[in-house]
């Protein structure tokens, strides 16, 4: 059985890199891996969606709607968009950040609360705030990686540089201080 993950966010947030790190970590554990990326249009501030599947034996590169064990969202509106991928009992991890889409203003607290109360297994992770504390929003994907790695049962991928490793550890700590989602 493969673990199916959908990683989403907004172009420029490092969604592709986050997915690649997850894939690398899975590969170092000896798993087979498929990462399905979408390039091109999605890089221009648009929605970005990457599918990651790992397991002893993986064939299909993409996750069907209603088929994801994990949805990992670097942005809250994109988390709403990716809801359709969740399978019953699936885990939803959402970065505490809204990047305003054109023509509509979302209140961060309101979106986060709506997500938290509508899916039983939801983790809200303040990766953006932690990344800013580390000096740059650029680290929010490595903070998120640290947060989800233990949920996914994966180690830190070997290719992280020093700064991203620090961000990874901060993300891992965040998870320690977050109550389990499935009460």
């Amino acid at each position, binding site marked *: 059985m493969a673990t199916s993950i959908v990683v989403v966010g*907004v*172009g*420029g947030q490092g969604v592709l890199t986050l997915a*690649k790190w997850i*894939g*690398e970590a899975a*590969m170092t554990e000896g798993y*087979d*891996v*498929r*990462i*399905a*990326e*979408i*390039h*091109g*249009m*999605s*890089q*221009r*501030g*648009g*929605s970005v969606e990457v599918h990651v599947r790992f397991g002893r034996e993986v*064939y*299909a*590169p*993409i*996750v*069907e*709607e*209603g*088929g994801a064990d994990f949805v990992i969202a670097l942005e809250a*509106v*994109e*988390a*709403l*968009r990716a*809801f*359709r*991928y*969740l*399978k019953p009992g699936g885990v939803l991890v959402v970065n505490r950040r809204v*990047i*305003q*889409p*054109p*023509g*509509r*203003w*979302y209140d961060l607290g309101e*979106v986060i609360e*709506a*997500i938290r*109360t*509508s*899916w039983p297994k939801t983790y809200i992770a303040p990766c953006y705030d932690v990344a800013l504390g580390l000096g740059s*929003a650029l680290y929010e994907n490595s903070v998120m990686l640290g947060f989800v790695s233990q949920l996914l049962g994966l180690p830190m991928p070997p290719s992280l540089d020093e700064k991203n490793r620090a961000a990874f550890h901060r993300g891992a700590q965040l998870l320690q201080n977050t109550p389990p989602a499935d009460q």
Partner: protein
Amino acid sequence: MRLLLLGNEAIAYGALSGGVAVATAYPGTPSTEILETLEEFKDRFVHWAANEKTAFELAYGAALAGARALTAMKHVGLNVAADPLHSAAYTGVEGGFLIITADDPGMHSSQNEQDTRWYGLQSYVPVLEPGDPAEAYKMAKAAFELSERLKHPVMLRSVTRVSHVRAPVELEPPAPPKWGRFTRDVKRFNLVPANARERRKELVEKWEKMRDVAGEYVAVEGAGDVVVITSGVAYNYVKEAVRRLGIVATVVKLGISVPAPRKVAELAKSVIVVEEGDPVVEFQLRAMGVATKGKLDGYFPKYGELDIGKVTAGLAKALDLPYDPPRPPKPPMEPAPRPPALCPGCPHMGTFYILRLATAGLNPVWSGDIGCYSLGINMGQQDLITHMGSSVGLGAGIAVAGRQFVVATVGDSTFYHAVLPQLVDVSTRSIPILIVVMDNAYTAMTGGQPSPSRAVPVEKITEALGLPTFVIDPVDIKRSVEVVKKAMEVIKAGKPAVVVSRRPCTLVAARKARRAGVQWPRYRIDPDKCTGCGICYNLLRCSAISKRPDKKAYVDPALCVGCGMCAEVCPFGAFVPEGRRDRWLELWQQA
């Protein structure tokens, strides 16, 4: 060496292990990374060509001379190269010649969903169809030997979910490049009718032989009376769907899907066919007298890309089995669409704004084109986009049809790709359209490949053709509007004119600045001055600027790249820079 590789990287490494000497391409999603990967290898001739036809010709010529050569393109690129493709099958080749196309089922970044395997049938070129990066590596490597054995070009058809999928791939070291020297053989290489008739006869015979060769690429797995014939990426969905339904089936994977191997017709009288794209295999099987259940009769969807769910549902339907598909949950709030937009600080954003002001009241037809500037659709300034070169080509047609005023917008890379010959028509018939070349010095939409615009500036070409040409810097909005108005005078006098709007791609400039440790200015809003008029977020439409609930503007500091166009368009002086703009704009121009 086992690496996590993108399908396109795997294809490139496969070609290196296969001894490729000449590799050419024109960038196009999802094919671009093939040549990007090969660019690192300086012992080969690797070239970004002006378009897919010139790319094809370079590689085809090299293969005629006995070198191992490849050309790579997205599916629609093969339309541009279709003329030499058909001749390549007639002449055959001496060195291995691999034609790689990357189809885009689901149209993630394309204007159509064409299945290039049809070209295999039409041009008599066999088509290899890998299902994942590891197989793409093996097929790209073996393709050169296959091509030399057949003395014939071979095609490798990838799709988005092979080219842009990362998976573990076992790599072998690159083989030395195989170069060649041309040997005269007029009867074979000169396709005057008398020679071409002979080649045609040979070609038809060769094709029958290739059906047997295709048989060597058939893999049969499992057992049972249910026979599923599949190819390429579809195989992966079949494997998981068969398991999910818990059925016993014989899964037959075609490594070469065109021509369909003869021996497959002997496997069963009735089969299920699962393939990504059009029913190309299914058509061929029916022509061989096999009863099929596939896309033709709607067991599987005729558009969009496959996934496990669609293939499971199709198999269940074909076998009359019950299947309860997963029900996707609904989100608690509607996510507003987030369509791709021009990057914050994109020079094209300024160009569109300038054009709107300069043509106010004239209601032009906005004739658009493929590339970043297609995103002008968000500003209502891309009335049509159909193919590479549609801007000037179709725009000129619209102008002669009913004397409408046409503004044709095209990027620099597309200009060299498709517009050069169109300029000759526009110039010789003096068709009064305004051609706007948005020159950002890169093929930006595909990730910033080099464009010829610095080596051969647009204005040198247009002026040589006698077209009045005006050059503007789009971030200098006020002055540029006046210059474009001068160009409009030419149009009003019944003649064509060209505007070259020049400033390098923001993404490239920002990347270079970051590496050099250069800080650019950032703009913020003075809330006392902002009146919420909306010019910046509605008309300029910078994606770093959003509308607050009180209608006032907000600049996301993480997205602002300091172009200052917002400050130029704001009538109230509400945008305040932090840092110096003039020095940044100078550095940017050199990116």
